[in-house]
């Protein structure tokens, strides 16, 4: 047991505070930077208190875009949102169904199917990027939402998570359902799905953020600026060759890019934690 002396408590809090400062300071800096004009930031003497350009910076970023990357951030956010939601829901759907099949149905090569899914854990997007690109290109899915979402949906992680959860559900529940006249689909819909809510939430949070933060894949398959996601937008804003980088707009965009994942985490935190630590039975 840890002793509860004032000094040890003080040290514990101090450590925590230092940790929080290390993590939070860059974020604070970004938020501050989004409230000044270019000149103030560029001359290297940016104050740590808020400036007066916030309104203008956010309006410009959201609706007009930067000088170099002219796409409005609102459009990029919409693209990112569609992609992140598509990936999150797609992954949940695919993985809950495949876990259901692997756990509850007996079919030839069931073990093989499971291991094949398992092995894909070793093949992240980056490793299979060329063949995936080739397939998506051949299907004519470049510069489409389908092309952005589909290759990222297949998820061994989700399947494993659901499989582990399903295996903790007592067999008698399935048997009781059978006797109650529920077929395979009813059992899934009436029993398995309601019991999986917390696991689904946990997976949603993880996958939404994963989808939102995708960089390499959208960079490869989107060429039209109307399909650009926000992560790529930030990148485009800060790489300039012959003009001053509009740091305040880049920072504004970065702050805006943080908002949706933060909201998702805040609102789903309770379910998220529950889903990872507790199996409700």
């Amino acid at each position, binding site marked *: 047991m840890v002793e509860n002396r004032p000094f040890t408590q003080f040290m514990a809090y101090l450590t925590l505070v230092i940790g929080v400062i290390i993590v939070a300071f860059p974020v604070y800096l970004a938020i501050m930077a989004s409230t000044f004009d270019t000149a103030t930031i560029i001359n290297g003497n940016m104050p740590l208190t808020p400036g007066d350009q916030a309104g203008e910076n956010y309006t410009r970023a959201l609706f007009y875009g930067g000088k170099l990357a002219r796409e409005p951030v609102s459009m990029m956010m919409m693209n990112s949102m569609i992609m992140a939601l598509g990936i999150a829901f797609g992954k949940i759907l695919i993985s809950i169904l495949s876990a259901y099949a692997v756990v509850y149905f007996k079919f030839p090569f069931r073990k093989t199917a499971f291991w094949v899914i398992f092995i894909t854990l070793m093949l992240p997007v980056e490793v299979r990027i060329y063949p995936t690109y080739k397939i998506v290109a051949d299907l004519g899915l470049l510069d489409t939402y389908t092309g952005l979402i589909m290759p990222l949906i297949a998820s061994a992680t989700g399947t494993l998570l659901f499989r582990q959860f399903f295996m903790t559900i*007592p067999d*008698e*529940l399935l*048997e*009781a359902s*059978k*006797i*109650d*006249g*529920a077929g395979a689909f*009813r059992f899934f819909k*009436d*029993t398995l799905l*309601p*019991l999986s809510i917390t696991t689904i939430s946990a997976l949603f949070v993880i996958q939404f953020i994963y989808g939102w933060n995708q960089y390499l894949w959208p960079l490869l398959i989107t060429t039209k600026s109307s399909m650009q996601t926000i992560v790529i937008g930030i990148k485009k804003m800060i790489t300039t060759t012959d003009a001053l980088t509009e740091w305040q707009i880049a920072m504004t965009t970065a702050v805006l890019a943080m908002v949706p994942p933060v909201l998702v985490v805040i609102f789903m935190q309770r379910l998220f934690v529950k889903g990872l630590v507790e199996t*409700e*039975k």
Partner: protein
Amino acid sequence: MAGVTLDTVRKIYAGNVEAVKGVSLGIEDGSFCVLVGPSGCGKSTLLRMIAGLETISGGDIKIGDRVVNQVEPADRDIAMVFQNYALYPHMSVYDNMAYGLKNRKTPKDEIDKRVKEAARILAIEPFLERKPRALSGGQRQRVAMGRAIVRKPQVFLFDEPLSNLDAKLRVQMRVEIKRLQKALGVTSVYVTHDQVEAMTLSDKLVVMSGGQIEQVGTPSEVYRRPETRFVATFIGSPPMNILPGKVEGPGRVSVGGQTISVTDMREGLSVGSAIEVGLRPEDVQAGGASGSSSISMDVDFVEELGATQLFHGKVAGTEFVVQASTGQIAADTRKLTLSIDPANVHLFDPQTTKRLGRD
């Protein structure tokens, strides 16, 4: 209502493990049949085959006049109560009971009527809106029974339903199950390893061992006239004492040189052949009595059970237990003379372990 008929039912698992070895059994309409046996004897497998949760490797199972070998569990017109209740954790008590009826497309008002009725019978009306996790073990067990009752099935199947309850609640629920079954008159098959449950609940007691039926009968038949040594030692607590003996002549056997008269003894057993002599701890009396044979016992120690005492010791070198009312025998007794009523002696064949009684 309908009875259940099993005809040489077999279950063979992968790897050629035979869990049920050709069981034939008729369960009359409206009767309470208990399958009892040690774990691994195939009793649960048999029940699950009747329910349709296990496939049948051989033989036929009939519910009423219908062979149900290939019928889905939901269409067999049965209801099952599980050991761990298997209530749907996310549904209220009401929905748990209504679920099966909803799946059968029963009209809403009919569902409501039946659920309320079952709740009234089981005294769980105050909990209808609660989730199972907010209930105690006994209440959950009642909900599980309610789920079975609302279906108005032909057959109730119970798979060790009381094993998860504490001792006091178990006795209480045992009585309730019995009363409920009598009131509803539904054919019931009940699996347990607890011989007290088996004895008290059953109209028809089926003792199983090693995937086979050892004996079928009323509880008192099984207790009074066990057909095999297994049944003799399984039913009854403390278990029956088995002593090695020899045939002395018609109606007479000897144990360690002491002669015992026997009423129920097969004729024509050759004199001097080995035989096993079974005596229930509660059937032997301390002290000599006229008209009965007697044997002597060396007492090792005494167990106090309150109303009764158990005297552990040896008769002719074999472990032996005597049950006596407290105070009947002094606790510091070291040597006992036991009188034996010839009607209470059970004889078994040492090879086949079958009873050697009159035909």
